[in-house]
């Protein structure tokens, strides 16, 4: 036989234990709190461990001794800055002077070679040396020394000392009785 609804509800309320529900909630809350605390402690431990590892790796990878050595070497070098500057100046000058000397032509050698076999009867009327060209005018009372001089120049050409030897003119001055010869020589 079924009881009326109001009587059924009365029986149900008698069965509900409010104290137990409260305990479960409290237990849940305590558990939650404990988890949060554990997480906090673990995070703290993690941070501390990572920081210690970081410190250790920092020291291991870049030891203080390396820094100290570098600093002391830099300090030592700073007292020799003057020498460093002088050495830099010397190196710079050496480089430039070498370049300058390499492109410099010693004309005195060329002139010496040119007139090495000049017969004494020959007069040099004019000489113009410009970069790699020599314009020369000589004169003599006889053709023989002129011929001798030309032979000497041909010899220089054979030795590759000169590249071009041009006889520009050969003239005779009746008044003075001298022969005049003009050359163009390329070095």
């Amino acid at each position: 036989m079924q009881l009326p609804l109001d009587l059924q509800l009365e029986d149900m309320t008698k069965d509900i234990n409010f104290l137990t529900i409260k305990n479960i909630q409290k237990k849940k809350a305590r558990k939650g709190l404990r988890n949060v605390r554990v997480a906090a402690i673990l995070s703290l431990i993690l941070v501390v461990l990572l920081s210690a590892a970081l410190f250790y790796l920092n020291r291991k990878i870049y030891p203080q001794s390396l820094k100290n050595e570098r600093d002391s070497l830099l300090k030592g070098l700073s007292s020799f800055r003057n020498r460093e500057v002088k050495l830099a100046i010397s190196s710079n000058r050496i480089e430039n002077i070498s370049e300058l000397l390499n492109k410099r032509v010693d004309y005195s050698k060329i002139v010496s070679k040119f007139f090495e076999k000049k017969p004494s009867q020959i007069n040099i009327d004019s000489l113009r040396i410009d970069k790699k060209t020599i314009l020369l005018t000589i004169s003599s009372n006889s053709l023989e020394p002129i011929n001798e001089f030309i032979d000497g120049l041909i010899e220089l050409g054979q030795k590759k000392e000169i590249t071009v030897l041009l006889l520009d003119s050969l003239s005779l001055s009746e008044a003075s009785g001298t022969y005049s010869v003009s050359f163009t020589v390329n070095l």
Partner: protein
Amino acid sequence: MEKRVTIDINTLKFLYERQKAFIIPVIVIVVCFILLLKFIMPQFQALFTLGREAKKDSSRINVLKNNLNLLSNLSDSTLDSQVQILTVALPTNKDFIGIIDAISYASSVAGVNVAEFQLQIGDLSQAPTDTSAFSSISLNLSVNGSVDDINKFIKALYTTLPLSEVTSIGVGNTSSTVAINFSYKPLPPVTYNDATPIHPIPNSGLTLINKLSNFNYKFSSSFEPINSSPSSVINPL
């Protein structure tokens, strides 16, 4: 219909009382999280850079050691005399006094008279700035003498400091002309870089200095010809 939520001080107090046990752990977690993200992780990333830096530094230390060893073994007086002779050979500016001295010396050695000369010095007020190219002072000389004398003059000038370059020679019956260029070059600014190895003067450089020291050059007040008394000509080697 819009629901209105009112939070008064009592509600906050109630909430605080109820959740206060959670506040400190949560703050700790948040702080740790921030520390991890903002400081620790970047520091770990920086370790790689530090590693590279340490590697670079250890090779730099070797360079520094070599540099220090080299510089400490150099003699100041040797360096001074080397610099002096090299800067006399190739001046850093318009050394017109050196030029006049060189011509005077070469003419006296050759026994020629310099009748007249024209020196194109240019602006002396401004220091030359181009350190990459050679600059030069051009000079045209009228010299009285035979071809042999002119040749002696050129020869003497060739072995006289400051270094010069004869560009043209004109020998006539009455007078001769010689065109000469005296080069100079400003020094580039010296920059310090500790990571760059310093090299000593190479043997070719020492040979050059030795060669230049045998040239004629005026040091202090007297002009010193080749193989003169060594007291006033400084031999840097």
